[in-house]
């Protein structure tokens, strides 16, 4: 039932300024939408921490251990004496370990990206197609008409070219 105020801007600077004003006015964290990454978002809207790095780290560790376990474990599972080498040999198994470290590092990074950026989207979300071209949008969730008009006023004052009211949910 909540409605969203969405202001379209022609440039990133005023969009960012509008977002900052909204935040200072006590709104929930405004969201920016843009065709290119905007620099300096963190200074205005507060720092962001991404969990992706942890995914990558643990994925890589898991892959490394798993890679060695795969090579060494299967060598023991069905012993094939070859070339006068020990059954568990480090130099070749470390190469497998290396590759698996990277493979699982990559896969975990993707998983971390999908989870932390909430992908794939299943429901429709607030969106303005113009932001994929050359517009910069600021959206903020509003509980009722009052807050919406307050947000819209702030957005217009900051230089929004257009303000939309997008209803979410039903």
């Amino acid at each position, binding site marked *: 039932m909540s409605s969203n105020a969405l202001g379209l801007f*022609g440039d990133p600077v005023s969009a960012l300024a509008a977002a900052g004003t909204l935040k200072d006015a006590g709104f929930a964290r405004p969201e920016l939408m843009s065709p290119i990454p905007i620099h300096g978002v963190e200074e205005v809207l507060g720092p*962001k921490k*991404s969990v992706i790095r942890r995914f990558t780290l643990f994925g890589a560790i898991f892959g490394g251990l798993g890679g060695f376990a795969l090579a060494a474990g299967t060598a023991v599972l069905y012993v094939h004496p070859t070339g006068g080498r020990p059954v568990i040999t480090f130099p070749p198994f470390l190469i497998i370990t290396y590759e698996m470290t*990277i493979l699982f590092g990559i896969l975990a990074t993707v998983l971390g*990206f999908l989870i932390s950026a909430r992908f794939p989207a299943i429901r429709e979300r607030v969106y303005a197609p113009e932001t994929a071209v050359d517009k910069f949008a600021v959206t903020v969730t509003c509980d009722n008409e009052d807050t919406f008009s307050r947000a819209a006023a702030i957005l217009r004052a900051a230089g929004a070219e257009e303000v939309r009211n997008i209803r979410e949910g039903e």
Partner: protein
Amino acid sequence: MPTEEKPLQFADVNNDIVRSLVVTGRNYYITLGIAMFVALACFFFPWFYQLYYGIGAAGMNHPTVWGTYLASFIFWIGLSHSGTLLSCVLHITNSEWRKAMYRSAEAMTLFSLLVAATMVMVHVGRPWFIHWAAPYPNQMGLWPNFKSPLLFDVMAITTYLTGSLIFIYMGSIPDFAAVRDRTSGWRRHLYVLLSLGWRGTDTEWHRLGWAYTFLAVLIIPLAVSVHSIVSWDFAMSLVPGLHQTIFAPYFVVGAIYSGTAGIVTVMFVLRKYMNFEHLITQLHFDNLGKLLLFLSLLWTYINMLELFTGWYSGTSAEYEQIKYKLTGFYAPLYWEMILFCAVAPLLMFSTKFRTSFVPMLVLSIAINIGMYTERFLIIATTLSRQYLPDAWGVYVPSLVEISILVGSLAVFVTLFLIFVKIFPSVSIYEVKETMPQPRKREANLES
């Protein structure tokens, strides 16, 4: 929409890319048709023939049991090397000029890897059992041999293929979203799925930036390891001329070299036939030319070192190897390689040469011909002159092999042609980043 009153710079990029996807000329269909026909006639038909009758359809014989199939395998893996690797390095070092070209370079990586994997299937004697080289629990209780350099290859190439696919896909998500909003019909359904619901919020950009950088950092050592591992297929043997520690850097440099030349070729074609003149400029060719020149010098140096270490070893087998390489049956090919890969690239010392498109195209193709020769010679000259002179023999590729080589090129072209109609072949958002940013204008204040 209020966008119409603007100078429309950002929108131009979207229009260009969407047009490249949606508007398809007759020439495209003709090229695609020819490529598919050649792929069928020259690649799949001889391959099925070979599958039916046995690998004897190729020209391999007793001492030289490896042939052009493996040379093609190394060649395609090598070609794959500049795409994603170069893209990652340039991403991390924040090079602006990367942005117009990296998508097609990454696609090159992906498709050359696919072709390389197919070449393995063509190469082995019983491809219907190729899955035995993959580690999976099975009713026989048997596992692959993880001590084998060939298995390192399996793992490395699987990882590289996965990594490249994910890397190119992740970088394209915002572009899929941009294209999604502009297309209809089956394309829209496709892009809705592919874009995952991308909206371009600050959180999404932030996560994408992190994930993308992490991937780049992971893929650089991976790409280096992939070609080192390919080189170990050879260097871990005892064959004189192959058993050398220099092989890993040799292969990696050769791979990046031929890959960069491949990018020049692809960029020329894209520029010419996809009308990206204002996106792919002389600057790109100039920079790639400098890179190519550097790589060619490095490659020449390693080649001289290879001869030197062989001579310095002082063993008769290595002497014979060098003598055979420089003056033997395959010597014309060797000198052709030196001409194309070591001498001709010196032209790139001239700025004028680097910034002219057609000469760069010709040179890039010559380099790749030379590099293919190099891979062929690595196999043919060494295997035909091993320790026991009684088992010496000469190998000449058969018609089937040559046909499959040509056909593999057509397979690559086909895949690439399909790609340019599905993937935005130039990154929309990264090109926009290089353009002048929209400025605040007082006139827009009224609403």
